[in-house]
């Protein structure tokens, strides 16, 4: 059954004025920010479940196959040395997103908007000749007799990092949005991770929602109390520390309860998993396609040297 997110959870924040000139932007306090972060977490978890239950190309693949091909493609992207090759791979991720019926707006904002923007800001200074010496393309004057400006090497390096980071995040988002979490876990188990670690990861994911509820309750209760003028940064911090301390108490109680319940059901410290699914023809075709793509990428990249 497809899970659907309620409208209120998907609604974007409405307290921002559309333009800085027409209204004053309200500075959000730490309470509001945390409550919104918890809502965002739930929203993205539910949206991923929703998109993972669509009938697209990537949803049909076995999670293990997806995980292996993800690592292979990430490695290929890390080894490639040309921006043009990376851009081709980026277009391929867009095609995969379309063929997997992912909501494009969501995919593009998660993978193509903030990450490249942030990375761009971080690596932009690398284009300067101070950081990356080389052939100056855009001159910005002289500094103690040396020409200063943007270098060819610096610009190329910055472009390389931004495009590689964008490709990598796109690949991860593709897998995250098309694979339900239990399947991804099962795949992790059959591949590399020790059983016990996978059991812990699975339990952690479930506890997250329980404890997130506890955090949200504490914060909403605090927010609901009438605001008084004496509320200071100091008091706010004291509240955060108290909630973290209380949260730790809750985690200990929860862990004790869960442990007793597990022992009552016959848990003896060894993790057992359900049977795994089998590979289909689509999976085999996908593996072949991935090997081809990786070889093509690396081949073209080396040939262009």
């Amino acid at each position, binding site marked *: 059954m497809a899970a659907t997110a309620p409208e209120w959870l998907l609604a974007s924040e409405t307290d921002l004025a559309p333009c800085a000139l027409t209204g004053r932007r309200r500075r959000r*306090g*730490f309470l509001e*920010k*945390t409550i919104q*972060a*918890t809502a965002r977490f739930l929203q*993205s*978890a539910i949206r991923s479940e929703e998109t993972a239950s669509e009938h697209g190309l990537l949803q049909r693949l076995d999670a293990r196959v997806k995980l292996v091909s*993800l690592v292979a493609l*990430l*490695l290929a*992207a*890390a080894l490639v*040395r040309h921006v043009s090759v990376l851009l081709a791979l980026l277009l391929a991720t867009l095609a995969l997103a379309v063929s997997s019926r992912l909501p494009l707006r969501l995919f593009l904002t*998660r993978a193509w908007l903030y*990450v490249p923007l942030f990375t761009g800001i971080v*690596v932009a*200074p*690398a284009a300067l000749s101070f*950081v*990356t010496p080389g052939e100056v393309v855009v001159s910005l004057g002289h500094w103690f007799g040396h020409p200063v400006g943007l270098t060819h*090497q610096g610009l190329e*390096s910055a472009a390389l*990092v931004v495009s590689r*980071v964008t*490709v*990598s*995040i796109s690949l991860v988002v593709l897998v995250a949005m098309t694979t339900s979490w239990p399947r991804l876990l099962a795949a992790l188990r059959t591949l590399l991770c*020790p059983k*016990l*670690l996978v*059991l*812990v*990861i699975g*339990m*952690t994911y479930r*506890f*997250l929602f*329980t*404890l997130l509820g506890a955090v949200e309750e504490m914060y909403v209760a605090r927010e609901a109390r009438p605001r008084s003028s004496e509320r200071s*940064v100091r008091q706010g911090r*004291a509240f*955060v*520390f*108290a*909630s*973290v*301390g*209380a*949260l*730790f108490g809750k*985690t200990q109680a929860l*862990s004790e309860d*869960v*442990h007793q319940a*597990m*022992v009552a059901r016959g*848990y*003896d*410290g060894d993790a057992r998993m359900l049977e795994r699914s089998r590979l289909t023809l689509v999976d085999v075709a996908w593996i072949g396609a991935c090997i081809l793509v990786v070889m093509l990428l690396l081949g073209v990249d080396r040939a262009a040297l």
Partner: protein
Amino acid sequence: MHIPDGYLSPATCAVLGGVMVPVTAIAVARAKEVAKSRYAPLIATGAAFSFLVQMLNVPVPDGTTAHAVGAVLIAILLGPWAAVIAVTVALIIQAFLFGDGGVLALGANAFNMAFIMPFVGYGIYRLLSYGSSLSSRRRVLAAGIGGYVGITAAALCAAIEFGIQPDLFETADGTPLYAPFHLSQTIPAMLLAHLTVAGFAELALTAGVVAYLQRANLPLLAFKHRGIAETADDSSPPRSAWRWALIGIGVTALLTPLGLLAPGGAFGEDAPAELDLGKYHLGAVPRGLVKYADFWQHTLFADYGFSSGQHETLAYLISAGLGILAAGAAVFAIVVTTRFVSGRAERSPSAETA
């Protein structure tokens, strides 16, 4: 501090991932040994706690907010090895579900935040809180400083990982292939950000939560602090004499470099021929000294130096370290042998009477 994919070369990721595999394996083995079947829920709630702590905004002056990693706090509450697994699991979920931190860079992120940070922070905490009661203010301060130093150490590691990229990986024309900044740029940038803002957020969170637990839930804090008095009034456990002996030896060892400043030498230490005989009112070099001066020449570090005579200071310090190790090993061997012998002597009569 989460490093995304694309900044680090696959080789760097492989090395750090390779370091984290045995570390995680040891952590799992140790935690299992201590917590037995309670292990899975305990670590899982710890990991969920770690994830949520990273989501909470800590208010800082000027109306802005900052995040803390919380790895040192978890190390104090659950122990450093449990912190390794809890933070690693939180990082795995962040990387695969939210694209926060890279998949290939998972090993690097785990090395910085799940290994270096909890261990450095916890070490500082243990050192500074040594001998204090569970509800003392010194313990709060120690926790805070542990958090501050822990996150700064993690940031320094990240800076080094970034900074070595342009020197190791660049094309023929000098285009850096991965993170383009050099060590001289990454280290000041990361340290400035963490020594000023992020470090204080971590300090406030770690100290604040420990202080809260001291007031509101001391048993919870006592969970990982067995054998430590709850208040200063309680009789503190007796400290064994060998601890003080070790401290004394440690201080002496740290003072080793003073020897480099010392002028002159002992009587006839170097070679009999160099003796200033007139100073000691002697007519000739003593016969015994002549006879035994060249008795043993098969030393590793003759005159506390390398045989090549280069790097005098380094050789002196290495000699000091090796000397301490050799003496320590000898004492240890004597103690073990004595115990073994006396243990056998004690056991044999009891076996006869039984």
